Structure formats: C-alpha cells, structure tokens
C-alpha cells in the first residue's frame, strides 16, 4: 500500500507524503528552537520542554490519526504533538508567551493544552488513565476513535501506568500508548530508572506491543500505522515503544549529558534523515517557509497584549 493512500482528508492532519512529513517536523523544530531563543532573550516566562530530536515520533504517529475523530493526550513535552495534531502555531506560541490569543488564554502555558481532541497535562503518568477513560467514552459512543497517549521512559516509573494498562486490556479499550524512549528521565539515564525490558511490561497485561529504534519518520509512520490499525480494528490497546533521543535539554539549561553522546545522536537527526528523501531545493524552500512562518508568528505575538487578568479570574 502506498503511503499516499493512507492520507485522510482532515485539513489539519500532517500530510502523509514525505514533503509534508518533513515540513511538519521542520516546523516543530523551528518553533522550539525559537522558544529557546526567546527564553534566552528574556521574552518568555515560565518553562518549556522541547522535543528537539524527537520530531519524527510526533509527526509519524499523528500522521496516522484523524484529528476530527481521534483523541490525543500528551505530556509536559507536548509542543510537537500539539503542532502535528493541530498546526496551530499562533495559539501555542501565544499560550507559551502569555499573550492574548493563547490557546488556553494563558492559563495552561507550555504543558497544559487543550484544543479540539487534544489534551495535555504536566504530571507524568496521570495522563494514561485519563486517556483510557477517553478511550472508554469513545468505545461507548461507538465513534471508532482511537485515544493515543504519549509518554516517555521516565513515566514508566509511575504505578498508575500499569494500573491503567491492566484495565485497558481487561476492558478492551481502544488505547494507543506511545512510549517515546529517549533514554533519560529529566537528567537520570534509564539505566538508573528501568529494570527488565520495557515491552515485557505491556505483554504482562496481554497488551500488544512493538519497539522500533529509528529516527526515520517513514518507519515511525509505518509502525504507528500498524499500531493504530490494531487498536481500531480489534478495539484493544497497543503499546508502541519508539527509541529516540532529545538533543535539547530536558527543560532550558539543565543538560549534563556527554556532548559526544549528543553529537553522535545528531548524526541520526530525524530532519537530516527525512531531508535525504527530498531534493536540496525542496528542502531549502521548506526551511525558508517554516522560518518565515514562525518568525511572523513571533512578531505578531510580541505585538499582542499580555493575557488579560479578568480572563484568568476563574
């Protein structure tokens, strides 16, 4: 089956051809680099957790979902998922910048987003049962929707994840758990966090699982397509583990990893991998367009007033 045939028609969905996938990843990359620049320039208040280096996960997985129907629940590192699902650069940027026009009126900030069928929250693991409950709701409605929850390897330390996997399997919930395994829980390597192997945790509950060590968005997409089809056709959960790497710090200036380790992983930068499928001109054209789009959004946001206090009175 050709990749193009996988495409849905919802306008906000990531395109399924290579160009669109690359474009979406480049947008997320440029957006988050810009956030870090804005922080450095003192233009941002609060915190941010970027997914620089992990963009293939968000874009590859979400390209297999239907934003009009499917539900996505994300975590503190949610910008990539949000942009891949909604394409709402202005709403997210203004939310993070605390300006009028932010998608949650400035109340949520970087980690707490809601739009359409997209939700994120900031406490690790807490999102998994919520997503399971949403999967249950959609099953009961007969909507055919898949609820996808993104977690990281750090979140696998939370007991509620396993309570929820058990219930999702027992109750046959259309839940896709995507583990973006970047090898670190904040600053602590997974060697100090995780015993045994990750997929066995899902298998113990009778949950289908697979693991993929790739930064190729097409490979991520293929794995996610299989996972989503499993959930949609059987109505049972799936535990998709994607090995990845974060080039950026956990948050802003808190990176103590070996620079050589980071440099080695940069050789597998998902943008570089995806760019290899495009011509140089095409890549440059996209890069330029994305830069312009983000820069324009920043200029407009900087001109917008700060979130009005009466809007936050609740």
């Amino acid at each position: 089956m050709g990749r193009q045939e996988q495409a849905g028609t919802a306008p906000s969905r990531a395109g399924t051809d290579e160009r669109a996938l690359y474009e979406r990843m480049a947008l997320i990359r440029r957006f988050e680099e810009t956030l870090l620049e804005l922080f450095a320039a003192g233009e941002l208040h609060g915190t941010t957790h970027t997914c620089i280096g992990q963009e293939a996960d968000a874009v590859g997985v979400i390209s297999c979902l239907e934003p009009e129907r499917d539900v996505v629940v994300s975590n503190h590192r949610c910008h990539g998922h949000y942009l891949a699902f909604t394409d709402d650069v202005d709403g997210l940027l203004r939310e993070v910048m605390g300006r009028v026009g932010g998608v949650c009126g400035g109340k949520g900030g970087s980690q707490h987003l809601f739009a359409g069928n997209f939700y994120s929250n900031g406490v690790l693991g807490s999102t998994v049962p919520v997503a399971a409950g949403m999967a249950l709701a959609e099953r009961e409605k007969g909507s055919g929707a898949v609820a996808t929850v993104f977690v990281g390897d750090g979140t696998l330390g939370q007991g509620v994840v396993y309570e929820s996997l058990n219930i999702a399997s027992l109750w046959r919930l259309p839940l896709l758990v995507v583990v973006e395994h970047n090898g670190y829980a904040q600053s602590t390597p997974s060697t100090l966090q995780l015993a045994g192997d990750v997929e066995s945790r899902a298998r113990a509950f009778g949950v289908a699982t697979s693991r993929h060590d790739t930064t190729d968005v097409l490979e991520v997409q293929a794995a996610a397509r299989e996972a989503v089809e499993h959930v949609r056709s059987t109505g049972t959960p799936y535990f998709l583990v994607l090995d990845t790497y974060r080039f950026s710090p956990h948050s802003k200036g808190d990176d103590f990893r070996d620079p050589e380790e980071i440099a080695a992983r940069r050789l597998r930068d998902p943008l570089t991998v995806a760019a290899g499928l495009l011509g140089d001109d095409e890549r440059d054209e996209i890069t330029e367009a994305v830069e312009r789009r983000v820069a324009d959004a920043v200029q407009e946001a900087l001109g917008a007033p700060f979130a009005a206090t009466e809007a936050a009175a609740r």
Partner: protein
Amino acid sequence: MMRCGQALNAALHEIFERDERVYLLGEDLLDPYGGAFKISQGLSTKWPERVLPTPVSEASIFGITAGLALRGYRPILEIMFGDFVTLGLDQVVNGIAKFRAMFDDRVTVPLVVRTPMGARRGYGPTHSQSLEKLLIGVPGITVVTPSECHDLGAMLTEAVADDEPVFFVENKVMYGRPNRRPEGGRIGELACHEGEGRYPALTFSGNGFGPSDATIVTYGGMLPVALDAATELILEHEVFTEVVALGRILPLDLEPVLDSLGRTGSLVSLEEGTLTGGVGAELAARVQAEAWSALDGPVLRVATRDGIVPSARSLEDEALPGVEDVVAAVTAVGTRVGG
C-alpha cells in the same frame, strides 16, 4: 421511613433510569454484593453495561472517570472507603479540579465521587477517617456533605447533574439510620429550616428561631451528635442553640452560618475530622472576617483529636468528639440568652 443507605440506592436507580450518560465505576459493585456498603445494589443487574467493576486501582479509576467526564459522560465513582481517596489525589488535585480552569473554561468535568467517611464502626486508623479537610483545600471541586436529615436522593441527583466535579461525602454510620426529613418545618422537637440551592444547609432551633446562645455548625455524620448536644443543652442547662448542618463545605456555604450567628452571637464548629487545619478552622477564619461584630467571643472548634482513630471502641470514643465535648464548647463560648 427509608434508611439513608436505601434512599441513596433508590436515587441511584432513578438516576440510572433517567440518564444513560451515567456510568458507575468502583470496586466490588456487582450484585449480589452491590458495593461494600450496598449502596450500589441492583444497579449491575439492571444496567450491566453501565456498571463497571474495577480492579483495586484507585489512582487509575479516578483518571478513567475523569476521561469519561471530559468526553461527554456523567460518571459516578464509588470509592469504597473515604480513606482511599488519598490514592487518587493526584488525579483530583492535578487533573479533575484543574481541567476546566486551565483549559480556559472550554471543558467541564461532570463527575461525582461517592465515598463514605467516618468512624464508630471500629474499622481502625485507615478505615475510619474523615478526610474532608484534604478536599476543601482543592479549589475547583465541590464537596457535598449530606446528613441524615437532608434529602439524600435530591442531593445526589443534583450532584450528578452538576457540571462541576463533586465529592459526595457519605457517612458509614448514617447509611443504617433513618433518613429523617423535616415535616411541617420540624424534625422531632426541633424547628428545622431548609435553605436554598442544590445542596442546602439545614438549620435547627429549639425555640423557633428566636434569640439563642450559640450556633453549632456541623455537617454529615456529626449532625446527630450536634442535635443531641442541642437537646441536652436545653434540658440540662437551659441553653438554646441553633444547629446548622451544611450541605456543602466547598465552596463553603457561609450564608446560613452568618444568618444563624445573627440570632446567637457565638459559634462552635463540630466535625469528625481531626482538629488541625480542618473545616472548623476555615469556618472560623471566614466568619471572623465577615462578621466580627456579630461575634460575642472566639469561635471554638470541636473535632477529633489530632492523631489516629483507634480501633477499640473505648479508644475510638475517646478520640472522637461527643455530645459532652459540644456541650462544653458551647458553655465555654458564653451564653447571652440562657445560662
């Protein structure tokens, strides 16, 4: 007269009959067991697809209930013992209570958590607590506290219809007691006024709401203790009190308290939770700020002694507030009409 447990069970049947968006989740719900206190009995037989018996996984089922509520359902979560709410507090504090506000008022989380609090059954330190104090510190939820004299069915129905997340705090001892309702403005020897709203307060008076000596503010399972104290104060001390049984402690329903205070001038709070940082503390702070000039003296709190609720009956009785503690507090705040 129906027992309180029966009234709640009957209400659940009506609620299920009327609204198919209502689901029930919790442990040991299936018939013939019907929940540890039998409040859910019969539901799983009539609506097997909407009664979901869960594993022993409170943290998860709080979250699942939230997910259902966010996506259009009106779930009820039965937590077997109020003590176990602690296992789901992350979901309450960081999710359920916050979703509506942090998502800019564009979602609602219409769920009800039903749970029994309270002691006097000898269940010991981890199955006897009254942890409402943990809940009233969580902005964004509503904490409803029916007593045996409230319209339990109506309040539960309102809670399920409420767009806000509601903790419906029941009381273990109350389940087996008659659901006494005011008739002709009276319950027994006392005049009883029922307030307005979804979760009204009940105010009792021994002298037809004439000037009295003190107001005892309480809620839930402590109401019978307050009423017994009020009766004893009249009979033994010729001291008249009003008793306010709050139907909602978050947001704190201050108006009936201030109203009563206007006739009494003194305030004693009575709760089954431990003393420090409890409902009485919040009440005292609010009342002194709102009605300093109406107070003849300090607000006194009667509560369970800070510490555990022991299992042995003699020790349990000693730890919990009783009639004599209320009488002593009312006597101590001073009386301006009687004694």
